[in-house]
């Protein structure tokens, strides 16, 4: 037991510092990917609700393709394919050397792109769930588009979307482990390094298990609190 504390603690022979840094990295890359996903998701949901056929088709294509391929493949495609393509372009322009994307950027983009597809569906569903009468009522009292969005659509949308968004966030947290293939030292990569370097895999993998569990549990509680807060308007109604 004491050797376990020494192994995972913050002493000179302890991996505590590295593990905390890795946990922060997981959090940072997940948050960036989730935020990127919100951008893709908002665009996607807007396109899917559009009257014109072209944006609707494009958004359908996006969600179908991205949800239909493994996320790991998307990461590999961006990380190696993206670097090779960038280098090829640079070489064609006469530059030497390597032009790469770093693991954080690639991970954020790849996981963001994938989560954006799921967020598209969540947001579209939430938008469709807003009773049409409320929007008609807002128009009837003469609200402008912006005011209506701020006072009626956004709060209602948020309320309907939050549970689904909470699920997507958990999914993003777990998918961030895939980014370890780029060498980015987040929880997954760090516990693998620790396991391989000390040959004590059980201690490190079980630590990784708990680190992920801490993140998912805490953020789950946050999402639940947010859901309750957004439900206030429901109770009044």
């Amino acid at each position, binding site marked *: 037991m004491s050797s376990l504390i020494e192994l995972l603690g913050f002493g000179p022979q302890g991996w505590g510092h590295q593990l905390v840094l890795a946990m922060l990295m997981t959090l940072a890359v997940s948050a960036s990917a989730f935020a990127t996903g919100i951008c893709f998701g908002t665009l996607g949901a807007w396109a899917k609700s559009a009257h014109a056929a072209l944006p609707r088709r494009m958004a359908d294509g996006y969600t179908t393709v991205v949800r239909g391929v493994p996320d790991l493949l998307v990461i590999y495609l961006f990380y190696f394919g993206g670097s090779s393509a960038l280098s090829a372009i640079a070489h064609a322009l*006469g530059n030497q050397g390597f032009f790469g994307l770093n693991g954080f950027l690639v991970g954020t983009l790849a996981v963001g792109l994938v989560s954006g597809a799921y967020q598209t569906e969540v947001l579209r569903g939430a938008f469709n769930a807003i009773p049409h009468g409320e929007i008609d009522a807002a128009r009837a009292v003469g609200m402008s588009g912006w005011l209506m969005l701020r006072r009626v659509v956004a709060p209602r949308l948020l309320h309907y979307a939050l549970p689904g968004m909470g699920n997507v966030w958990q999914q993003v947290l777990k998918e961030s482990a895939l980014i370890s*293939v780029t060498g980015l030292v987040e929880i997954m990569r760090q516990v693998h390094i620790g396991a391989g370097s000390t040959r004590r895999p059980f201690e490190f993998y079980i630590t990784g298990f708990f680190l992920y569990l801490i993140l998912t549990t805490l953020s789950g509680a946050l999402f639940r609190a947010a859901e309750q807060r957004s439900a206030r308007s429901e109770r009044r109604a």
Partner: protein
Amino acid sequence: MKAMTLLGAAAAVALTAVLAAPVQAKEWKKVVIATEGAFAPYNLVRPDGKLDGYEIELAADLCGRLKIECTFIATDWNSVIPGLQAGKFDAIMSGMSITPKRLEVIDFSLPYAQSGSTFAVMKDSPLAKMPDTGKRVSLDDKAATDTVLKDLAPALKGRIVGVQVSTIQADVLNMFFKGLVEVRTYGKTEEHDLDLAARRVDAVMSSTNYFVSTLSKPGGELMQLSGPIFVGGPLGAGSGIGLRKADTDLKDMFNKAIKEAKADGTMKTLAIKWFKNDVTPE
């Protein structure tokens, strides 16, 4: 009109780029080396986050001889070859064995470590006393291989053998033990060690170098090596520095340094420090 402007702008950018960075043969002053950082004792990470291990110290020695500046990047094992080819780094030192399959896509320096591969089993397992234990068998020698396989067949028949996926040991099992044993592949070597300890597999196959450290770790005292030590064939000539095929100049440089380190005993000293046995290739 708009298209013309765009074309003009693109041409201007291209021209500037060409003028700014004239094409020239790369002179090797700085070399970036990739390693897994999780394959002790070849390469590992210390608790303070710094890389260490046989390959890290050997590289420092080789680069010192060549008077070049070498930096290590720790990256995932699955991405070392794609990363080399994409140009993320210039060399791989990650316990990577020189094999005909890998030589199709990348080039290697001379080997700097060669160990055989064998089985590890639990001490109380019926496989603990396999025939030909400790005997060096070259898989290039067909007659010797056939004899040994015949010796091993009764003991191994129907047993489950764990091995890391995409390794030369997995190739050995698939080429020589197919039908005799059930091969179970794992993403990481320590995973098959865990399953050996949990007795979900009857034996695991890996390099003797790797097993030296496995046996010295907690739980390792319950395990032992068994069966012959295989070399050659799909196991290749040992571990070398992985390089792009185009960089023959870098290969010549590393080869020269490896020969020197071998000749003056540096390699042997480092091998004994990290592997507890001399893994200097012949």
